[in-house]
């Protein structure tokens, strides 16, 4: 009897996994060598228009990482029957087989984000048995498929900004190691974006608007999440109705704290910018630079309260020189709107 029940369960699981395997290619995802072309994973029904396959769910973040004004399309795939474990503070614990997908794209005009979109690259974070793997895929000109570029690539991209000015940038697709430059905790590759605070917002699932944490729970992609009303929420840095202190700390959390935290690649700096850091010297308040080299710009403190112009943090965000700029990777342009907001915040500190 027991044997029979087990057998039935096994058959059901097999059937289920087959149903998924028809869509997303789990074997390709779990292979030790990454696929040469993005299409081989079967993550999309329509690659060019980024229409995800069954089981691949789009998502968005409250406050995203700035990457030279690129649009980002994010998707998550968790193999059937498995779920991620909820965490209040850190990125959820995703099961083996999970893929986090992020496609970087530019419209020809930032003001019209849905028109004339050029797909640049799609980055995959794949959870394998022995940890996360990070692979960058670069789109061909025709946008029919994207090819693995382990060593990264530089690309010339031009687009128009909201004010009509044309921008030409030397876009850098990171190599697999550079991915780890940001995506590392205690030396292991780790996702950065999908934590509870930053996912806690509504998303339009093709007409049905729903809180993302609720949706993930309903689909059993996520287990043990509390009710949405009990969840903390990241502050949208660009929302002028929110307190400036929270906007600033939220921006720094998302854009800097993946490295600047005790467990991250910039641990040796002693500058820790997680939203929950309470030691004010650690988040930069009158903190002196350590190994900043030219990055200090002759200034004494990371954050000099009341004086944005004398704060190293802004000096480095305003620079595009590799020896000075922060973040070190992922941008060639200055995020002017954010710099302005942070200047307002620092000038208001005492």
């Amino acid at each position: 009897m027991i044997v029979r029940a087990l057998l039935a369960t096994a058959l059901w699981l097999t059937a289920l996994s087959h149903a998924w395997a028809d869509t997303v290619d789990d074997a390709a995802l779990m292979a030790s060598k990454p696929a040469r072309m993005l299409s081989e994973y079967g993550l999309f029904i329509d690659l060019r228009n980024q229409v995800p396959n069954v089981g691949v769910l789009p998502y968005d973040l409250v406050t995203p990482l700035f990457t030279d004004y690129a649009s980002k399309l994010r998707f998550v795939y968790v193999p059937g029957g498995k779920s991620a474990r909820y965490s209040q503070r850190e990125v959820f614990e995703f099961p083996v087989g999970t893929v986090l997908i992020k496609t970087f794209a530019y419209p020809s005009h930032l003001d019209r984000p849905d028109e004339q979109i050029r797909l640049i690259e799609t980055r995959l974070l794949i959870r394998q048995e022995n940890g996360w793997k990070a692979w960058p895929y670069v789109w061909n000109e025709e946008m029919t498929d994207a090819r693995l570029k382990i060593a990264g690539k530089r690309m010339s991209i031009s687009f128009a900004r909201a004010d009509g000015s044309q921008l030409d940038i030397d876009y850098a697709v990171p190599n697999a190691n550079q991915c780890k430059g940001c995506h590392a905790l205690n030396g292991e590759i780790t996702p950065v974006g999908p934590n509870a605070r930053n996912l806690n917002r509504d998303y339009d699932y093709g007409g049905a608007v729903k809180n993302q944490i609720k949706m993930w729970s309903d689909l059993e992609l996520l287990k043990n999440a509390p009710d949405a009303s009990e969840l903390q929420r990241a502050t949208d840095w660009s929302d002028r109705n929110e307190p400036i202190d929270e906007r600033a700390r939220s921006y720094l959390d998302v854009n800097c704290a993946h490295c600047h935290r005790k467990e991250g690649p910039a641990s040796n700096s002693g500058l820790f910018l997680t939203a929950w850091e309470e030691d004010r010297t650690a988040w930069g308040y009158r903190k002196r630079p350590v190994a900043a080299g030219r990055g200090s710009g002759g200034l004494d403190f990371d954050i000099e309260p009341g004086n944005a112009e004398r704060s190293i943090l802004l000096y480095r965000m305003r620079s595009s020189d590799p020896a000075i700029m922060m973040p070190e990777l992922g941008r060639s342009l200055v995020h002017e709107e954010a710099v302005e907001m942070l200047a307002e915040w620092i000038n208001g500190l005492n």
Partner: protein
Amino acid sequence: MSCKFCVFSTLPLLFVLTTAAIATDDIHVVPGPNAAEELQEALITAEPGSTISLAEGTFNLSDGLSLDVPDVTVRGAGMGRTVLSFGDQKAGGEGFLITSDNITLEDFAVLNARGDGIKSKGADQISYRRIRVEWTGGPNEKNGAYGIYPVESKNVLVEDSVVRGASDAGIYVGQSENIVVRNSTAEYNVAGIEIENSKFADVYGNTVTRNTGGILVFDLPNLPVMGGHSVRVFKNRVIDNDTPNFAPEGNIVGMVAKGTGIMVMANRNVHVFDNVLKNNGTVHVLIATYPNEFDDDNYVPHPRGVLVRDNTYGEGGAEPDGEVGKIISDVTGKPVPDIVWDGVVPLTEWLSWTAAEDRIYINETDGTTFANLLMIQNTLYPWSTSPDRDIADYAGALPEPKEVALPQLQGQ
């Protein structure tokens, strides 16, 4: 007939096996138009245990390189022959970043990186051997900060290497433990060699010349790893350090006076012996307290347990430079004595006494000059304080840290 058949069939098989073995263990990269991509791809796809050989010639790189695979050797054809040139670098905080364990770097040069030269972070067993890191335009504040830069690492070896032109420290080991820096040359940097917030370090046999400051042993506040200790600085040649300080403003090394030989700031159990110090215009040996304000309850700003012995001193102290040089020479006059201690101790100790293991000890041959600036008294009663020059009062011994043993040097 059958036997011949056997031979013929196994030969190609053997051949296949041999070439396969070479392919996985040794990757050759040759300069050329696609070399940058080939090299970075080799660094990513290398299997543990493999060697990446860089042919003679110049590799022009516009992005920083990185290695995250453990147990890999990267070997060039010589520090004068294989050059990784970063003159056109567009991104990356350093020329070459290593984040994995058990790595050996040998026989190549890294030139003109925009940020640091070669950085290894969180790496256990990292060896830099016959490596040259250089900014070829000479001292310039636009040069990168550190040449050879192991940080948060364990079992660090730097030997027979050369660093020139770093706008902070040529060879900088930070927040690390078990360190050997030996038989290397650091010249035309702001600091030649710096051991910072680190423990168990042997720095010996190096030639440190034409820098602003020669060898610095520092401990700084507000860092994850603090409380540097057990450092031996010996048998180094620290001479002619006379390059004006060209550190970008705001850096802690910006305060180092031109012509500082060996400087110990904060730290515990530091032994300075058998060095040759000559023509260092501000001071040959300076023992000092961290000078800035700080907000960190766990930090001890005073140097404790420092022994200076058996060094050879030439001319020096005749041209004290900058703010630090002025503070010292205002108290001591010129030439500044060979060895200077600021004399700052914690207030509790100033009011009572300092434990034997925390004191400053000087055992030098007759004729060596010394001053304790007594900076606390000097600040409180400048009219009645003069420095303590009685070197004999500081005689004494401290147990010396054991020789640093590195696993990568076992069996050599």
